[in-house]
């Protein structure tokens, strides 16, 4: 589903050169739930942004669903992000001036040929899936952290992406809320077969996934299968 080959990302300023990723080779097969761990600043988010086509690597290639991405233009990258990738962020990134329903509809605004009624119908279904059907008219600031993250998940789901990239989705939540969110993600992976790549600091959450990749100083230091996944 996602293949990263010899990825290197260097941030260059006038005085400093920072290597964020170095010689990263990673293959995420279709339907896998992969977690990425590592200390702050080790390049986890950069890796996720590279997978999500939000950042272009300095060298190396990104392949998504068999398509080599390196040569794509901005519009084509945006189209792939919209069609194939759903994002979930630690700080939810909801638009406060839009209702829950409108927030969830956002990805479909960038997809042609979907009517307003269809958008609304699909947004309601996505919200139902995360258990927020009763909150469609609420605004983000009227929701708890867990509810906001569920809205963000519904937003990631609405476009029926093959891949979900989650950047510390439980990072801002207490353990109960975090558990709830994790269960939704696991459910998505198991029931819908969605490929999920999750960056986390929480070892417990990571151990619930199928595979754990650890990073340190921009380099991949371990890659292990988690065998008790089936019993979760």
């Amino acid at each position, binding site marked *: 589903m996602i293949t990263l080959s010899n990825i290197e990302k260097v941030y260059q300023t006038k005085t400093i050169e920072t290597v964020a990723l170095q010689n990263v080779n990673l293959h995420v097969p279709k339907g896998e739930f992969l977690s990425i761990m590592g200390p702050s600043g080790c390049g986890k988010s950069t890796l996720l942004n590279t997978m999500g086509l939000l950042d272009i690597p300095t060298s190396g290639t990104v392949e998504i669903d068999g398509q080599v991405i390196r040569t794509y233009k901005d519009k084509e990258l945006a189209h792939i992000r919209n069609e194939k990738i759903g994002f979930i962020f630690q700080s939810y990134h909801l638009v406060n001036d839009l209702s829950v329903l409108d927030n969830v509809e*956002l*990805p479909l605004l960038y997809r042609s040929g979907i009517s307003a009624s269809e958008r609304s119908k699909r947004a309601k279904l996505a919200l139902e899936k995360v258990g927020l059907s009763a909150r469609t008219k609420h605004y983000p600031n009227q929701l708890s952290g867990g509810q906001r993250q569920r809205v963000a998940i519904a937003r990631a789901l609405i476009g029926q992406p093959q891949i979900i990239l989650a950047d510390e989705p439980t990072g801002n939540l207490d353990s109960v809320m975090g558990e709830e969110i994790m269960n939704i993600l696991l459910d998505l992976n198991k029931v819908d077969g969605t490929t999920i790549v999750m960056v986390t600091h929480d070892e417990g959450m990571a151990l619930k996934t199928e595979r754990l990749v650890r990073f340190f100083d921009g380099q991949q230091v371990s890659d292990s299968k988690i065998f008790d996944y089936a019993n979760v």
Partner: protein
Amino acid sequence: MIRHLFKLMWNRKRGNFLMIVEIFFSFLVLFGVSTLLLYFYTNASKPLGFKYDNVWVLQTYSNDMPDAERRERTAQLLKQLRSYPQIEHAALAGPNGPYTRSSSNTELAHDGMERTANVITVQDNAFKDVMGIEMVDGRWFNDQDAFSNRQPIVVTKDVEEAFFPGESAVGKTVMRGDTERTIIGVITAFKPTGEMDDLTSSYFERTALEDTASRAMGTIYIKIKPGTNPQFEEEVLETAANIGTGWTTDLQQMPDLRRSYLKQILIPMIIFAIVCAFLILNVALGLFGVLWHNINKRHSEIGLRRALGASASSVYKQFIGEIMVLATFGLVIGCFFAVQFPLLGIIQEVPTETFIQAILTSVFLIYTLVILCALYPSKQAAAIHPAIALHED
């Protein structure tokens, strides 16, 4: 997307209130200036109906001179002036000629319809030649008309069209008060006060200097041959002083009168337009600043939208779209007030079409202004790197 933008901007109406107010006031100021400019432009584009080049206006004031003597000396002065080779034509008429800042408005009526027109009394047949007036139908005055019981008049084309649409007015009668006037001729146009004014209707009536029943006129309109030495002015004044002993005389060139007339109208208009331009410039800078600030506050939203599938050009279009939606809110309120002017007839001199044109012009200018102000900040928004923008929150 348009619906989404309207929803977004409506939900942000509190935050954008000042910008909407700013756009609303800018629209009103632009509407005022546009109305004024269009009003004068529309007036100026209507035919003038006469030629002012090489026309001099000699005003004579006879003070206490007995009427008979005044008439005799005026006739003598006219005869003398006409004898000069530098003078093509000289006509005796009322003082309310073009650019003299005096007019004599009366109501002409026909078949229950009334029309305001400026009346100019001529006391010989030369006024048409002095002013280069063109006949459309019928004829100009002759000597018999001064004593005719039919009270002959010559009207402008717009009077004919108003009273007798699609037919000739020659031979037909109109009422001035209780008396009937017979139209003997129709001229193309004659804007009585000047090109900037909205009054286009005029009519001429003929009296005779020797007819003691009618008032003796004291203004002589002189058509000078092109290339005449300006010193000839002194000769004319000297002649007038010699013949009309004790008279007060004043000689002015019609192009100078026109310049002074235009200055009187254009200077306040230019000042108003400059003030308006500065105001709009301030508004533009304000809009630019507010947009810049808004975009800086919305980095994470921009990053989010990019992540969800918006391309850089979608972000660019979104910000342009947002400012256009905001402008629409301000313009809807502005238009509500602007349409009251033609609906309630607040300024009756200005026709409805001019108000509509001014509204459309102002709407166009406001949209252009907000788009211009939004171009650079929107471009900056589009250039924001999504990964960095998402990380900023």
